[in-house]
């Protein structure tokens, strides 16, 4: 069974990667669609040019937004669009016939694009850190937990979107919900302003949502401003909630799904 899954995964990854490679211009263009944190970096740096804003100088803003950009780039998933399109065009029925959970196929598809995107993302971040001289704000010892938190953030965002995408089994157009999740990710996640600029009460309220743990937390972890413990646990708990939700939706939705045109 496990060997089966691994064989499928490898073959499917190769296929998806070949497709991504063919559409590489599109894949790279989508990076461009996520430049908001970088635009915010320019505005905040300009604001802090004369005197620090809330304890941040231009260098600290550069570090924060470049890494927040990396966080959001690692949390960019389009599974809602895929599932929505598959259900409306009828190709979802074919996916259901495969002896694999469509979830796995979607994860692999997402990952195959990251294989192309992430090197370029890292290049942009490295260039930015060099130009602003912000390399020394990184705590190298934190690298392993940082990586772990990024992977958890990606999986959390992915499974949250997957749960939403399964709502397509009931209503045929939930694409708008996708925009909603991204707004929350960017705002409450802290890609538009560092969350420490908010009042403590608001921060505490936001901490109960999954979003700050996906963008703000990994950045703080890398800077040595946050402890790994409550953060990684919050990520894991939210991830578990999302996985359980989409398993339940999957069970219920599959029963009442009738192929479009069938």
């Amino acid at each position: 069974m496990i060997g089966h899954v691994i064989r499928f995964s490898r073959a499917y990854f190769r296929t998806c990667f070949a497709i991504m490679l063919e559409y590489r211009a599109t894949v790279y263009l989508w990076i461009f669609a996520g430049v908001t944190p970088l635009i915010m970096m320019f505005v905040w740096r300009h604001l802090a040019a004369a005197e620090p804003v809330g304890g941040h100088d231009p260098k600290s803003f550069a570090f924060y937004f470049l890494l927040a950009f990396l966080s959001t780039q690692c949390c960019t998933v389009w599974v809602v669009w895929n599932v929505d399109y598959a259900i409306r065009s009828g190709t979802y029925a074919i996916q259901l016939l495969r002896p694999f959970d469509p979830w796995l196929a979607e994860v692999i598809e997402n990952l195959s694009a990251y294989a192309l995107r992430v090197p370029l993302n890292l290049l942009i971040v490295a260039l930015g850190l060099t130009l602003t001289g912000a390399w020394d704000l990184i705590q190298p010892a934190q690298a392993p937990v940082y990586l772990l938190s990024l992977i958890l953030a990606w999986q959390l965002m992915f499974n949250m979107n997957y749960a939403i995408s399964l709502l397509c089994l009931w209503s045929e157009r939930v694409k708008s919900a996708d925009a909603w999740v991204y707004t929350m990710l960017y705002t409450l996640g802290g890609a538009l302003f560092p969350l420490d600029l908010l009042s403590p009460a608001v921060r505490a309220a936001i901490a109960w949502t999954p979003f700050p743990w996906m963008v703000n937390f990994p950045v703080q972890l890398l800077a040595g401003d946050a402890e790994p413990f409550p953060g990684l646990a919050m990520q894991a708990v939210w991830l578990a909630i999302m996985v359980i939700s989409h398993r339940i939706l999957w069970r219920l939705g599959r029963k009442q799904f009738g192929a479009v045109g069938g």
Partner: protein
Amino acid sequence: MMRVLKLVRAFWGNSLALDLEYRFDFLVSAVTALFTTGAGLLVLHVMFSYARDLGGWTFHQALALYGIYLLLEEFASGFLTYNIGEMPELIRRGDLDFILLKPASSQLQVSIRHFRLVGLPAYLLALGILFYAMVEMGSLTMLNVALLIGFLACAMLTVYAIWTLLHTLAFWLVRIENLSQIFFAVFKVARFPIGAFPGPMQVVFTIVIPIAFMTTVPASAAAGMLDWRHAVAAPLIAALGLWLSHRFWQFALRHYTSASS
């Protein structure tokens, strides 16, 4: 003119019927508009709790600018996307041929085919913000409103012209759906006063890509602080854009040989 109105009624009646089919989508999109707008307001709030001005603009001036940005953003994402933005798809599938056969201007048909009711909450929210900002600034006079409407129309026509110029490229390149992504990425800059950016970026966004003109001019009209040079430039840019886009469209049509030939 009567024929245009009739066309609009037929097209938009159709779109309305389509939108009413997807009521859940409408609800979600209303909630989304609420959150997106709220997010933008939160950003301005956080900025102004630390700074007195943003590139020389006060909070309420920046708020008016944000209202204009929201209007134009929704105009692009909720209207242009479904009309002129469909060009690559129309060409690839060969549907453009049916449009060309109809006895009305093809550019007009492609430009006004769909009107999405789904965008309504976003427009109302944006207008609400603009209205509130003008009341707070004490600039809500008949003259300012008239100027605002005039310059907003110029901005919308400019955005439309840019989209048409970009999407007419589809006659040669076909696969260019993502051009609109570039537009949205660059346009995000327009939600802040241009003075909020470092010097070199200001030059780029005023002269090279005149993004600044699109939101800055209507917002200064709303705030009653219109610069006469901008007031002259904005209609000229809009007129020039429209003329160029129409000429380019006609030029492209002459080279069009249908999808399968």
